[in-house]
């Protein structure tokens, strides 16, 4: 089995160039099922492991309002790739970090690429990469994709982001089935929220919001605690965030009207 990687980023950050640099000619294109959005998947080998790279459409957010955002969000939520690589235009840090925060909300296994770093340097500016990495709680790789700089470092960072045992297990073609219970089998990033099935790769959110908001999120999670089916599909805090901001797609999944009312009360 291959290690599944997703590439995501705002439009025009050099995502396609990085995709091509990583995979070379080993890629095939098509459309996302039922969508007019192009789907590209490529492959590469690194350190004896095979990686499968999914190029997600360029988006500014994950609100699922446009087809692009819907495709990107659903892929991450439903396929839970081993690593999500967020490509950032280093010269537009402020705008690009917005998507990064949304990915942190999704509690994915994140690797951040600071692309176009040479543009920042040519301005004479500096980014404290180490501090940035600490703040967002994810490895940060400096790159300039057009000059093919930083690609090996990126491959290593992707591999290092996945715990060794898990990598080996993927390599052994072991498919984890829901309900299976051998202890070292999966990534216990967040033991308390651990579910069997797909969500064992949840990482604790590295960035939290104000206590007022977090309190409300907890309340929503509590309210939802009986909705097993929905909770099984999404990370609980992320689910709460979406319900809090009344995401129509997610809100529609709550069929219990009384419960829906209570949730809407909280976000008021």
């Amino acid at each position: 089995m291959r290690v599944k990687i997703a590439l995501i980023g705002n439009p025009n950050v050099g995502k396609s160039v990085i995709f091509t640099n990583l995979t070379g000619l080993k890629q095939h294109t098509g459309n996302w099922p039922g969508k007019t959005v192009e789907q590209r998947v490529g492959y590469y080998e690194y350190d004896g492991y095979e990686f499968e790279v999914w190029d997600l459409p360029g988006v500014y957010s994950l609100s699922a309002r446009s087809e692009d955002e819907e495709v990107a969000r659903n892929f991450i939520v439903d396929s839970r790739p081993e690593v999500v690589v967020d490509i950032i235009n280093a010269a537009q840090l402020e705008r690009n970090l917005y998507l990064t925060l949304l990915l942190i909300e999704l509690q994915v296994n994140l690797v951040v690429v600071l692309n176009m770093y040479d543009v920042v340097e040519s301005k004479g500016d500096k980014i404290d990469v180490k501090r940035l990495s600490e703040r967002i709680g994810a490895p940060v790789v400096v790159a300039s994709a057009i000059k093919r700089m930083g690609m090996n470092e990126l491959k290593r960072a992707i591999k290092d982001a996945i715990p060794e045992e898990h990598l080996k297990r993927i390599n052994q073609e072991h498919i984890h089935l829901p309900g299976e219970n051998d202890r070292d089998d999966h990534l216990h990033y967040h033991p308390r929220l651990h579910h069997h099935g797909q969500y064992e790769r949840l990482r604790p959110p590295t960035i939290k919001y104000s206590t007022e908001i977090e309190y409300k999120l907890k309340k929503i999670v509590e309210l939802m605690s009986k909705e097993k089916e929905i909770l099984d599909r999404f990370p609980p805090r992320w689910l709460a965030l979406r319900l809090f901001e009344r995401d129509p797609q997610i809100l529609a999944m709550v069929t219990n009207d009384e419960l829906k009312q209570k949730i809407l009360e909280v976000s008021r």
Partner: protein
Amino acid sequence: MSKDNPIDPQILLAEERYKIISDIISEVYSKGEKHYSKTDLLDRVFLHPYLGIMIFLVVMWAMFHFTFEASAVFMVIIENIIEWLKGFALQIPNPVIASLIAEGIIGGVGFILVFVPPIFFMYFTISILEDSGYLARAAFVMDKIMVKMGLHGRSFIPLLLGFGCSVPGIMAARTVDGRENRLTTILVTPLMSCSARLPVYIMIAGAFFPLYQGTIVFLMYIIGIVFAILMALIFQKLIFKGKSSPFIMELPEYQTPTFHGSVIHTWERGVLFLKKAGTYLLFGAVLLWFISKMGPGGYDVPIAESYAGILGNAIAPLFVPLGFDWTIVTALIFGFFAKEIVVESLSIIYSVNGAAAIRLQLLGLMTPVTAFALMIFVLLYTPCIAAIGTIRKETNSWKWAMVSVVYQVGLAYSMAFLVVAVGGLIF
């Protein structure tokens, strides 16, 4: 935050995220000695709310001026070649075939080819502007005005594409959010002056305003933009009552355009025009030649008694207030198929040699005021049959296609009339 007036939780979260981001940035990002990059400095000027618009206008004016100055000599060369070919074709022994080739095909399509240099030069300047990164800024500056006037921000991209051809412009309206906004954009995009109208402007401006060709054509484009915005406002306010939303646009870094790249882009677009000349315009020329030679009385009747003349004369009374005679009216009718055919048909109907002779014909027919009214009419009425088809396909209804035709013809007629009326008072 009061209980009665809750803040949208979505905005609350977004604010929270931006607070965290600015906190992170202040911690990790340090500005260097050089405070502004080249892009920053240029953007300060080009994206300035007022200065930016002035620069946009000046750049556009310079673009058209350059187009005409640079292409004039090439136009004369092509004209001479066409003339030479025409004289050659007239020596064909069979008079019908000689006439078909000399007056129909060479007179019609050949005459259109005279306008290849300005079209190519215009595409060339647009490519340079695009590759340098300026065009995206122009869109940004215009977008600000549009949003201020209550239009949807994303509408500007389809409108910008409409400068090349209305068909891709109309199709690009897909990217506009909301059905009302999309419909408005589809309806006004054909008002943007597409490149097919350029030959008409050049022909008329060359005859009546030879000293100000570039400026007059520039004016046409500006009038097109103004009417697109005005009509969009009217549609928005009266029919749809929609609200506007700004859009996020990526501004690329400025770059020095390469000659190689610009030539390639010019060729990619220009070749489409050549293809059109070889297919639709050729077919139109043959058809026009046929109906202007044939009449109820048989072959080679005087033009006024041909089918084309009869058709033109039948509708001409409607255009008396505008001062268009039946030859112009016939040309305008065939202009429904494609705007270039307006030029093509005048060349065939007058069946005289060369652009200079056609200019003389036009000068004898119209006053400068009528000529300007004609340009306005050509600018505002339905661009071509392909655009109507695209509107039908994109809106999935004949109703909106018909609305578009009716309002554009109505607008063209009334505005041309206004020009004649006001012009008559002044001159």
